[in-house]
């Protein structure tokens, strides 16, 4: 008899309020984005791909929230869900306390777009090859009518170009004439010119040449400082995340397995997946390498569906069971 009720409980979707508080009740910080119980599944039946499973996290105003995990763990999927490109199977996403998933009017969805922007992973694929830089960077200005006349628009565009260290003479050029780093800066300019509050940077430097990664990363940091931006920074490499983010969520196979302050996670990883990611970071000094054992994570060893989020210390969450966490924290 109780089984039947279980089925009912699973089938009936939880409903989510259309507005939530923007103050974190625990620490009093301002919440810019809140992701609640988000599932994103692709396909149906046997071939369902569960790209995101009961994701929960908050991004505070002004911080850089890092999302890290190997490729295929669902990082792009959740970023696109925030933008409304991927539909949620379950859950809700709130921006400044307002629900931005589910049915939105055209006006509402446009308002969200003007506040949340994305920097794409591959600058070669994400720029319109048949449009010149002037149009690419102006696109958002046209959409939101953020200029008075052509002079004003050109002024804004050249200003933005300068901020990303490009030249006014680039306006009439086409994307394929630029280097990878320059293209990514065009992409950054396109996203930032409409003055968003939240920027989703989906592995913005992983397709770039190693020699220019630092340059682009520092540019992103500088732009964040100058424009009071909040970042969701996606990467598959913990070293970059440590450098740029305040808090980190570690993702594996569609689940967040560990969430907390970047320093804590870096210095004291708990989940075995996080540990394996940390040992995968290449060491600059070859002598230290020998001391570190490269840990290999066995995904089959843990059934995520039987785990829950446990707060191991202040705002530090790990996906596990009390027994597992005890095992992970004591075993050395």
């Amino acid at each position, binding site marked *: 008899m109780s089984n039947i009720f279980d089925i009912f409980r699973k089938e009936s979707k939880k409903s989510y309020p259309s507005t939530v508080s923007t103050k974190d009740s625990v620490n009093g910080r301002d919440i810019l984005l809140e992701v609640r119980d988000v599932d994103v599944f692709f396909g149906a039946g046997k071939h369902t791909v569960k790209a995101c499973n009961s994701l929960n996290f908050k991004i505070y105003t002004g911080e850089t929230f890092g999302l890290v995990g190997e490729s295929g763990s669902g990082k792009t999927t959740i970023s696109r869900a925030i933008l409304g490109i991927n539909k949620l199977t379950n859950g809700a996403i709130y921006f400044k306390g307002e629900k931005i998933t589910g049915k939105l009017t055209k006006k509402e969805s446009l308002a969200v777009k003007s506040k949340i*922007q994305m920097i*794409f992973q591959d600058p070669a694929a994400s720029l319109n090859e048949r449009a010149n830089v002037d149009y690419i960077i102006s696109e*958002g200005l046209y959409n939101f009518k953020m200029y008075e006349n052509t002079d004003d628009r050109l002024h804004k565009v050249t200003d933005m170009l300068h901020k990303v260290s490009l030249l006014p003479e680039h306006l009439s*050029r086409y994307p394929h004439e*630029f280097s990878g780093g320059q293209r990514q800066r065009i992409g950054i300019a*396109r996203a930032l010119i409409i003055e968003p509050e939240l920027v989703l940077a989906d592995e913005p430097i992983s397709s770039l040449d190693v020699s220019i990664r630092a340059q682009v990363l520092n540019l992103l940091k500088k732009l964040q400082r100058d424009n009071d931006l909040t970042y969701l920074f996606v990467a598959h490499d913990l070293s970059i995340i440590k450098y740029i983010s305040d808090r980190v969520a570690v993702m594996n196979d569609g689940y967040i397995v560990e969430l907390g302050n970047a320093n804590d996670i870096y210095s004291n990883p708990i989940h075995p997946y996080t540990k394996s990611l940390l040992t995968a970071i290449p060491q600059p000094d070859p002598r230290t390498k020998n001391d570190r054992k490269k840990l290999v994570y066995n995904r089959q060893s843990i059934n995520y569906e039987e785990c829950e989020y446990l707060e191991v210390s202040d705002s530090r969450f790990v996906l596990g069971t009390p027994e597992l966490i005890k095992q992970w924290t004591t075993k050395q």
Partner: protein
Amino acid sequence: MNKRNWDKFSLKNFSEFKDVDIDGQNSAVNEDSLFKFVELDEFKSEVIKVEPYSYWKSVMRTFIRKPSALIAIISMLLLLLAIIVIPMFTPEGFLDFSIADKDLPPDSVHLWGTDLVGRDLFFMTWTGARKSIGLALITSSLVVVIGTGFGLIWGFYRKLDPIFIELYNLIANIPALLLYMLLSYVLSQAFPAMAAEVRLIISLTIASWIGVARFIRNQTLIITNREYNLASKTLGTPPARIMTKNLLPYLLSVIITQTSLIIPGMISSEVAMSFFGVGLPSNAISLGALLDLGRQKFELYPFQLLAPAGVLSFIIFTFFLFGLALTDALDPKKHR
């Protein structure tokens, strides 16, 4: 090489270097005069020195360089010259019925002989070619413009897919000739005053646009999920501008390729329709009408059929060759 050896090696090199005579003066070289500080201008490294790449310039260059394109261009120019110039110099009465001059073989007056009602075949054929090509160009433009417009909408709005697919099945499942005949008949009943040319253009357009639309729809589906279109969506770009700024420029080369293959197809369709008596009336001067007449006395006077048939083959050949060469040139991978 151990460390000491290496030191020796570099020292030796250094002494050699010191002996080098710079600028012809035997000056003592010190490090300060060899190196000078340059200001690092962050923006200078961003300058692009190469000429801006122009897609269309490269298309032209690739096109002109190919030998087969050269043949296509020459025969196209000859063809255009022929259909423009020859009809202008038609002697008085050469296109009129003249029973006394009927079925003449080629001679110095009538270069290609005369047809079964005494009209000059040389001038008739080229005048007819002009009309057929003109009709084909108008119809092809209409078909391509309408087909591209609907194709973009069909590909962009997935919800419309079932409607368009039904429409496509409806139009595509009727044999082309039967459809032309049907449309032409309906139009002649509904609008008796309509010129045969207009009727022909309309029925060919109605029957052909959906093929182009489907082609454009498939092409659109391939490119709409590319990341640059997602970027536009996240920027809130309205559909109309996504279609004109993101999709159409990418489709332009396939549209041109399609058009160059549609034109000869339209010429054939006009000929077929007129030949079967549902296109232009047989007293009209078009290639189809001429072929229809020429067929009637083929055994006795084969030239009456061979003249328009030969010109038609030349036209189709020219357009196809031109289209294929253009397709090649439009492919950026073939640009150098």
